[in-house]
């Protein structure tokens, strides 16, 4: 039996986010930059505050009460995150961000397994964080980085994928949701084809976990990276979720405290997973905050979060489409995209657009969005991006549209 869940109570949700009460340049804040970083609910701030006020101690080290409590809270957060992304707790590693998660795989798996002439397959719509780590290990191993092209409809060219997947392809690193185009990529299908060709698959789910609740198990990928701060959590904590036996087979990435079993002057033995990959004191409060963020999202239901974003994004596509000279970069079907719209407005530079909008308290992103190969492919220097989340409203889209009309008058 399927149940139709009630729509999100956005007014109640907004009440949980203290920053949304702010005024900017004399106007109520209209925060349309959640794809860069989300705002944080009081529940997350409260969990972190409580951690430092009542439980702070180093983890996995002491026998005293606070150390036990801190360790328990840290590992409890890992459990929440693991269940959220469909991975085992043992194969859920806390990192600093997605960049570190990808670097971990590139170094710990890539350096050991890539040989001269092997191929790493990425896509033209990757964020730099899922490109540069591969370029680094390619340079060290003699492997090559190739890319799946983007079609004129802003989708991945899946016909080209089959031609690119060959016996030298060792890993496919693909974004589950583009941070520029909003395109939702068919990662499960890509993973099936890649596995058939004998390659592993890493999903960059920086956008797709917070906005669509994608999971390692249902996508069928080997590695999945996401970051806390785009998912209502704090900055400084990210996650690498992996297939357990694969992570088990990997040697350490960073060395230091925590990741060892025994150390002598000239040798060490390493710890079991996941701690093998967590060198040094971790960001405990941040992990606890991310656990609270996961609780918050699951309390609302990711299906309702996604449904709300589809509504707001659909409305934004319609309203923005009515503006003369405005060009949208991304799929026109709202079902194929996440909660963001990238656009250009005539010849007006995105930094000028963002500056004029800011004067009315409207926060958008302007620039290359850390995806320069994609922007080159699109033939633009920069775009303006408005991105939404569970607290975004159609009234905020209206404010954006009014702001853009003002921009046009200003530079006419």
């Amino acid at each position, binding site marked *: 039996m399927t149940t139709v869940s009630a729509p999100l109570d956005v007014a109640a949700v907004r009440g949980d986010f203290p920053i949304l009460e702010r005024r900017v*340049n004399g106007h109520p804040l209209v925060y349309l930059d959640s794809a860069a970083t989300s705002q944080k609910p009081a529940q997350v701030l409260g969990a972190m505050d409580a951690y430092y006020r009542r439980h702070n101690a180093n983890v996995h080290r002491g026998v005293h009460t606070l150390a036990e409590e801190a360790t328990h809270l840290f590992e409890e957060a890992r459990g929440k995150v693991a269940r959220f992304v469909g991975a085992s707790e043992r194969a859920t590693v806390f990192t600093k961000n997605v960049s570190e998660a990808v670097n971990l795989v590139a170094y710990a798996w890539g350096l050991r397994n890539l040989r001269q002439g092997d191929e790493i397959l990425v896509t033209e719509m990757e964020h730099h964080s899922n490109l540069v780590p591969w370029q680094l290990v390619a340079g060290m191993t003699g492997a090559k980085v190739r890319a799946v092209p983007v079609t004129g409809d802003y989708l991945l060219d899946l016909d080209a994928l089959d031609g690119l997947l060959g016996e030298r392809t060792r890993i496919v690193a693909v974004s589950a949701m583009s941070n520029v185009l909003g395109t939702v990529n068919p990662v499960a299908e890509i993973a099936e084809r890649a596995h058939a060709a004998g390659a592993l698959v890493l999903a960059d789910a920086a956008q797709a976990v917070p906005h669509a609740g994608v999971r390692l198990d249902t996508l069928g990928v080997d590695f999945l990276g996401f970051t806390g701060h785009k998912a209502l959590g704090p900055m400084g904590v990210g996650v690498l979720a992996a297939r357990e036996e694969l992570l088990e087979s990997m040697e350490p990435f960073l060395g230091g405290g925590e990741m060892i079993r025994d150390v002598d002057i000239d040798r060490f033995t390493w710890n079991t997973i996941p701690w093998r990959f967590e060198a040094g004191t971790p960001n405990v409060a941040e992990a606890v905050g991310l656990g609270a963020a996961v609780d918050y999202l699951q309390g609302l239901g990711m299906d309702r979060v996604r449904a709300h974003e589809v509504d707001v994004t659909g409305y934004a596509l319609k309203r923005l489409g009515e503006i003369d000279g405005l060009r949208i970069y991304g799929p026109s079907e709202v079902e194929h995209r996440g909660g963001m719209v990238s656009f250009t407005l005539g010849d*007006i*530079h*995105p*930094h*000028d657009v963002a*500056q*004029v909008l800011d*004067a009315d308290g409207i926060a958008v992103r302007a*620039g*290359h969005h850390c995806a320069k190969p994609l922007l080159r492919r699109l033939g633009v*220097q*920069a775009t303006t991006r408005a991105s939404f989340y569970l607290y975004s409203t159609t009234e905020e889209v209206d404010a954006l549209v009014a702001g853009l009309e003002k921009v046009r008058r*200003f*530079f006419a």
Partner: protein
Amino acid sequence: MPLDDLYQEIILDHYKKPRHPGRLEDAQVEVHHYNPVCGDELTVGLRLDGDQVAAVAVEGKGCSISQAAASVMTEQVTGRPLGEALDQAEAFRRLMHGEGEPDEELLGDGIAFKGVARYPVRVKCALLGWMAFKDAATRAVTDEEGRA
């Protein structure tokens, strides 16, 4: 800060109607400068006549601040002794970094950019044209010395 303080009328005027636009046909040197933050790009062509700036032109694309500042630069330096043009460049740099009192005589229309100093991200945009000019001037002088 009101928007008009940043985007003064003079700035918008230079942005919409840049002075000395395009490529300089008989350029002595041509330099290409790029601002990775905004993606602003400028190609500055320069010709010296002895120690005078005989001609300068800018072909560019980018944000209003970068394009307008480059346009003001062309207007300021054309026909001036090179030493004075470099003093103008320094006066503009000081304006952007809020150092000392603005020298309005040296700055000319450049004074309109005073408000930009309060937006650190945009300071690089405003300085791009002047940086390109200084680079072009250095190369032109080095070339002439090489020939002498």
